[in-house]
């Protein structure tokens, strides 16, 4: 419809509307006649017109176009909580910036970054998420140049607000967000939710889903700058076996190379890299090496010459190859924004070109902000020139993203496209989730950095990057044993789980601090195995978007995502949900005797994972902890189901399990995966296929079924297998016998049922043997 001053477009039978005002220019998004978001509510829409150029578009492709900044403001009506904008070492809820610096998005290498600082860190995602009890909205500002964001809550925060309370009440709360970018075009999207999960799905449709990682990468990673030589690597590897601590990957930092020339090996320290990888592969362990975007200026090195002669380096303003200093000294920087350069770089990872690499070698991209030691703000000058004449300022925040992309492509291509890559990157941008994992960079071994790692990871999750974590133990400085244990325990509950330490710290392999510490770390890593290897597997199916009916979920979610109406949870930093079933509350206080846990949801019932004790939701609990029992702060939500761990059922419960071969793309190309749905209702637990598509043969079986919250104990347990005669007659014990006969044959996807009669008094189901899952 159209009036004198405005044009209104509507959809969803008029429920949603966009109203554009002519003068002053406004764009309002309405739902049920109520304005949700206003664009340009404060008239801050602005862009600098480019100099000496007839039209805006034509100038885009010209060199050095002059001032080109732009900005715009949004008003989120009714919102008092906004999140997102990674990466900052800051709390989950973004702060009002009217008292100081705006949030900045500019990828920088900041060693041991100051906490609670709004300056840019290693990566950027220009997505802001607003939440109130009945709606979640998002504003995605697609711009990769130096960007500032001002946030103003009104009424202002209770802490800083001096407005009299009476006046405050009359105002409808709102949040004003003002974006300013150095260059580019105004390209922004408003995501309307309204539920958190819907918003995440909308964002994923724009920027992509989390890549399905190879299974090994969900285990524990052992890293150090540096494991000195092959003997050192073997000794650490043997140490894990000797102390019965599982681990899956050992990492090599920059010192493994020949003079910081990536793709090479130090001939004295790592003379037989392939044999070393085979030694690890015998135990199905992998090796990850670092590969940074700077290339040592060395005309005697064929790879440098190839890059130089192929025109693969970023140039300076004069058209010469840009040089800056980094680990190798004088270096040039590959121009990953150029498709040909990416293709060339990907080929560098092929087995014939990358000498000493085997299929069990994976990669880690560091310093890709890019870090230039002698550059402005320790990065590349903004007037350096990329492919197509683009200035660095236009795409700075995308530099690391593109290297990540080329590396992941390289690892995929080396296997002929059949194997899933694993690439960790430090720098990232919106969409990096499609390429691999991210970590929070160089942190410090203090309790404050342990604490801040949780909101940092949650913020990354909110912006689509599910596979992320922080260096366990703290990269810089030496953690005391208590901090180290607590960090392992917290890190075990995050998707990417890597212990890392700098070259000037003491050795801190898990067995160096006495048996108590070793045991506690062992327990933490075991818990990680149990939780993530299987559980995250479930979550990442969704990332890969294989199954359209599954709700899109994050691996780690802020409490409010699961409890959108629970306002006390909106600012919770230290607690979060793993999937929808598990509440995690790691211990992050030194010398903690107890831990305060907020159990949201007054109609929820929560079960302590270690004691099976039940608690009513809607209150805070104080649970005792000691060094070893970190699991006591893991609680389950009623009505959910976790395969392999525990089944938590009252009236009904359901959950899903995903399995595939753990390493290839066959789940995608040949539908070689299995998605099972477990659901429980009226004393009947059903295990059936949740997807018609999946075909994955495996011999996994149901080991045990534990049920929490059963009011009365079952005497008999019946197991029904389709095709078996008379299910009602096959009591559990007789089933066991039959099962033995059929063991090994149940590799198809026929559904099986376990029927549980809960009439008499037995707490857990007596003894289901391994029931074939598939």
């Amino acid at each position: 419809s159209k009036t004198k001053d405005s044009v209104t477009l509507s959809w969803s039978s008029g429920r949603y509307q966009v109203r554009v005002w002519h003068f002053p220019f406004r764009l309002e998004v309405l739902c049920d006649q109520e304005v949700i978001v206003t664009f340009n509510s404060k008239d801050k829409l602005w862009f600098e017109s480019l100099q000496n150029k007839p039209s805006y578009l034509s100038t885009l492709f010209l060199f050095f176009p002059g001032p080109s900044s732009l900005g715009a403001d949004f008003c989120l009506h009714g919102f008092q909580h906004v999140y997102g904008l990674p990466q900052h070492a800051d709390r989950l809820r973004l702060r009002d910036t009217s008292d100081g610096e705006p949030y900045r998005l500019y990828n920088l290498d900041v060693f041991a970054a100051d906490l609670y600082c709004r300056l840019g860190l290693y990566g950027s995602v220009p997505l802001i998420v607003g939440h109130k009890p009945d709606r979640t909205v998002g504003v995605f500002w697609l711009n990769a140049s130096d960007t500032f964001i001002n946030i103003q809550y009104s009424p202002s925060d209770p802490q800083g607000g001096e407005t009299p309370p009476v006046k405050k009440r009359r105002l409808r709360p709102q949040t004003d967000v003002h974006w300013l970018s150095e260059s580019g075009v105004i390209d922004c999207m408003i995501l309307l939710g309204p539920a958190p999960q819907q918003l995440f799905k909308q964002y994923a449709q724009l920027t992509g889903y989390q890549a399905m990682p190879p299974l090994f990468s969900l285990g524990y990673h052992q890293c150090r700058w540096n494991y000195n030589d092959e003997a050192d690597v073997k000794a650490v590897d043997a140490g894990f076996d000797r102390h019965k601590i599982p681990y899956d990957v050992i990492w090599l930092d920059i010192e493994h190379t020949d003079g910081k020339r990536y793709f090479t090996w130090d001939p004295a320290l790592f003379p037989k890299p392939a044999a070393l990888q085979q030694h690890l592969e015998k135990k199905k362990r992998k090796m990850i090496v670092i590969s940074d975007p700077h290339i040592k200026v060395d005309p005697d090195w064929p790879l440098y010459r190839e890059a130089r002669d192929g025109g693969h380096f970023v140039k300076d303003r004069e058209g010469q190859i840009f040089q800056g200093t980094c680990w190798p000294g004088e270096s040039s920087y590959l121009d990953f924004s150029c498709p040909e350069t990416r293709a060339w770089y990907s080929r560098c990872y092929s087995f014939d070109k990358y000498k000493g690499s085997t299929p069990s070698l994976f990669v880690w991209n560091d310093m890709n902000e890019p870090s230039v030691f002698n550059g402005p703000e320790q990065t590349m000058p903004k007037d350096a020139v990329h492919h197509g004449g683009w200035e660095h300022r236009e795409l700075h925040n995308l530099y690391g993203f593109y290297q990540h992309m080329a590396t992941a492509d390289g690892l995929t291509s080396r296997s002929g496209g059949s194997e899933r890559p694993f690439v960790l990157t430090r720098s990232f941008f919106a969409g990096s989730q499609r390429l691999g994992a991210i970590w929070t960079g160089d942190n410090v071994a203090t309790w404050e950095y342990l604490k801040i790692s949780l909101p940092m990871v949650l913020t990354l999750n909110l912006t689509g990057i599910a596979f992320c974590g922080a260096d366990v133990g703290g990269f810089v400085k030496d953690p005391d044993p208590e901090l180290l244990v607590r960090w392992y325990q917290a890190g075990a509950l995050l998707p990417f789980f890597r212990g890392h330490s700098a070259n000037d710290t003491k050795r801190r392999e898990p067995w160096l601090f006495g048996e108590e510490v070793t045991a506690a770390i062992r327990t933490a890593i075991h818990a990680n195995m149990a939780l993530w290897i299987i559980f995250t597997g479930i979550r990442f199916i969704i990332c890969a978007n294989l199954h359209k009916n599954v709700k899109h979920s994050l691996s780690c979610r802020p409490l409010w995502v699961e409890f959108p109406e629970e306002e006390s949870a909106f600012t919770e930093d230290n607690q979060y949900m793993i999937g929808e079933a598990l509440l995690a509350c790691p211990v992050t206080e030194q010398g903690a005797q107890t831990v305060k846990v907020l159990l949201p949801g007054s109609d929820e019932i929560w079960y302590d994972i270690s004691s099976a004790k039940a608690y009513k939701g809607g209150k805070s609990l104080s649970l005792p902890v000691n060094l070893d029992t970190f699991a006591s702060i893991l609680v389950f939500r009623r009505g959910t189901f976790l395969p392999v761990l525990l089944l938590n059922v009252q009236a009904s419960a359901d959950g899903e399990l995903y399995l595939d071969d753990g390493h290839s793309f066959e789940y995608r190309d040949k539908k070689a995966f299995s998605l099972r749905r477990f659901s429980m209702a009226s004393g009947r637990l059903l295990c059936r296929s949740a997807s018609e598509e999946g075909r994955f043969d495996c011999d996994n079986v149901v080991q045990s079924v534990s049920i929490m919250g059963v009011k009365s104990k079952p005497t008999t347990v019946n197991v029904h297998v389709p095709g078996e005669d008379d299910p009602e007659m096959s009591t559990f014990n007789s089933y066991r016998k039959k099962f033995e006969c059929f063991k090994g044959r149940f590799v198809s996807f026929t559904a099986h049922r376990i029927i549980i009669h809960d009439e008499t008094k037995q707490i857990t189901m007596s003894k289901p043997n391994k029931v074939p899952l598939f």
Partner: protein
Amino acid sequence: MVMFGHFVLLVLIGGAMSAEVQRPRGVPLSKRQFYEEDKPFTCLDGSRTIPFDRVNDDYCDCLDGSDEPGTAACPNGNFHCTNAGFRPGFIPSSRVNDGICDCCDTTDEYNSGVDCQNTCRELGRKEKEELQKMAEIAKEGFMFKKQLIHEAKQGLEDKKSKLGDVQNSKKDLEAKVEALRTVKETAEQPEKEAKERHLKAWEEQKAVIRMEKDKARMADVFLELDDDDDGFVSFTELQSHSELDPDSDASFTEAEAQGLLGGVDKVDTVAFETVWNNIKEKYASESTADVPPPGETTQEETRDPSSDNDSENYPDEDIPEEDDDEDMDEDDEDMDEGDYKPPSTSQTDDKKDDDEEGTMPPYDQETQTLIDAAQKARDEFNEAEKALREVEDQIRNLEKEISFDFGPSSEFAYLYSQCYELTTGEYVYRLCPFNKVSQKPKFGGSETNLGTWGKWAGPEDNIYSVMKYEHGTGCWQGPNRSTTVKLTCGKETVVTSTSEPSRCEYLMEFTSPAICQDPSSSDSGHPDHEEL
């Protein structure tokens, strides 16, 4: 026929199996009695009793995992590999049928489809060879060790007797020193008096010269001030010399000038004498007005060099060599000091004074004789004292060595005051046992102290297996360097490897016969006996 074939095959397998003692899979021989077929099984922690057919049925019944010794069902279980031909051992249950060959006899992968090679015999052979080699080394090493113990005992006795000798000679020396001290003091008294006399005469002579010079200057100044050559210096003439302003407030008033002249308007040459005494400190000659007056810095200047020398003496003794970074720092500091030194203006003045006043005349014959005699007494005394100090050092060293912990039978004594080197790609490492460890770049550069002797630091039951060297050169933004030296039995005394597991924490492997154990006292290293 086919069926029959199978049957035979089964029997054969059964026959082969019977060679091994029958027991459930994964159970060690020592626990066989707990697993009796056809009798209910009680978990080894006593928590539960279950029918025997639930043992190894791939379902975990016992909290301690003891019902599933042969499967991966229990999270805390252990699987026993017999490893015939090699050493038996346990692996965590989780490694059973996980697709990775853990037991050398392949028994852990009985159902995973992985093709494992039985490597027990090969491993056993290698280990046997290794053990034999080690036993030989231990045997020979232990023989050396006995010799070392013998030598150490001998050496200790030698040292003790030497200590007695030296202690005696110390007494003699002490008496000698005392005697010579008296001689010296007796000779020094007349020397001192004669020298003082000579010096006093010279001072008086100097005073006369200075006074004459002052008078001459006063006359010059008078002429210089007396601008109108009227034989008087007037206050106006004085006012032209603003440096004489008594309160230095940039205004040299009439009254002030008059005050300097003793309250009169002008003075003649005689009266000027009193005025001169008041103004000569400040007066700047008109012809040499650029030269600043001699400052108070003179004193500092003369003091400085000696204090510099003092500070230079310390580092050699107490501060160990610095690493490169710190050397750089020190250089910087030195340069800074140089930069901030006040410009030395007084040196020229000093020289001038010397020139004018001349040097002290030589001592007369009589004084010189006294000095020579005293010097001789001093030299003799110093020499005797030095000899005494040397003897005392010797005693200290001997006592230290005698009381040093060189192991239960002093078998490590032979390492004392020795050094052993290992050259790697970049560095030469040097271990001087009971003294220090150091590292020197192969191609030039200064030595870095990796720690001085700290203590024996082995585990309680084998304390002499590890040496700890501490408080080496500090690391940049890090701890002081330290080195752990691990000793293993060897025929020769050699540093076999060095590494730096953590930054600035070094690890050195060192072989020595002194650590070898008597091969006859412990038969072989294996508590587990081999199962065949």
